[in-house]
């Protein structure tokens, strides 16, 4: 089992098997995005309180979910680096960080746009918004650290430790609406009880969530393959890859 995993995660093998997977997920992204946006904008009924403004949910919630999900993946990779010195995990962190930062920025911006007509303000320093903003700073911090420690020995371990320290913010973001009295609404989808959202509104949301996940996988594979190409540029197998281009 471990031997197979190690083989699949070796840069050369990863570069080979990730190509068809990347194209598959790219296709899924287009399909899910098309269906999700159409059903979210035109088929889902307007909310009885928020009217059509609620349709921002189809961008805001998937991007907010992805901002936490991507950081969780980065933390898992950081653990692989610290405990098992797993080389590929560092490549994945480098590929995932800008994507995570993009999702976080998107969640903050769309949340702000949604907040203006609903709350009457673009921004408020409540627990959910503030902890999500800290998450954006964490992503930027990880990227800055990676750039500043480029080519330095044990840089991947230092970055991994920073990622692991930042993981503290993830449960804070998620449970902030339960732990503190916030203007931001409580959980409606990601909770143990039945989701308190109509199925007509829920299905487009789930489709958009699949679209965002597919997009992330596509882009992460693309960026990881590029990074492998750079790091392995002196390897002989790269010449064969270049011959195929």
């Amino acid at each position, binding site marked *: 089992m471990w031997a197979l995993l190690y083989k699949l995660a070796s840069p050369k093998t990863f570069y080979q098997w990730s190509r068809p997977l990347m194209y598959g997920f790219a296709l899924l992204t287009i399909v899910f995005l098309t269906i999700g*946006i159409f059903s979210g*904008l*035109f088929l889902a009924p*307007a909310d009885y309180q928020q*009217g*059509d*403004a609620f*349709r*921002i949910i189809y*961008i*805001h919630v998937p*991007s907010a979910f992805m901002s936490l999900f991507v950081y969780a993946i980065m933390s898992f990779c950081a653990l692989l680096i610290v405990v098992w010195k797993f080389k590929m995990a560092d490549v994945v962190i480098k590929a995932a960080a*800008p*994507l995570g930062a*993009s999702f976080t*920025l*998107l969640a903050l*911006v*769309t949340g702000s*746009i*949604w907040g*203006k*007509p609903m709350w009457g303000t673009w921004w408020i320093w409540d627990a959910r918004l503030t902890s999500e903003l800290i998450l954006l700073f964490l992503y930027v911090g990880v990227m800055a650290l990676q750039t500043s420690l480029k080519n330095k020995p044990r840089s991947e371990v230092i970055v991994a430790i920073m990622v692991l320290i930042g993981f503290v913010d993830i449960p804070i973001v998620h449970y902030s609406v339960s732990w503190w009295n916030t203007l931001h609404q409580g959980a409606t989808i990601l909770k143990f009880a039945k989701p308190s959202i109509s199925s007509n509104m829920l299905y487009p949301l789930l489709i958009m969530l699949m679209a965002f996940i597919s*997009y992330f996988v596509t*882009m992460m594979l*693309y*960026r990881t393959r*590029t990074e492998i*190409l*750079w790091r392995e*540029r*002196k390897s002989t197998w*790269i*010449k064969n890859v*270049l011959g195929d*281009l």
Partner: protein
Amino acid sequence: MLAEVFSMNGYGVYVWASYGIAFAILGLNVFLARGYRKKVLSKVILNSTNTQD
């Protein structure tokens, strides 16, 4: 009919702006990643030809 779709009962500016920004950010990611790959590819090819010489 089309005007109704754009106005979204008065929330059109907020809704369309959100979707527009989403496309811009997701699109920018693709654009930057493609640019970086092209840059890396040209450097790797250059490195490969220099090694052969």
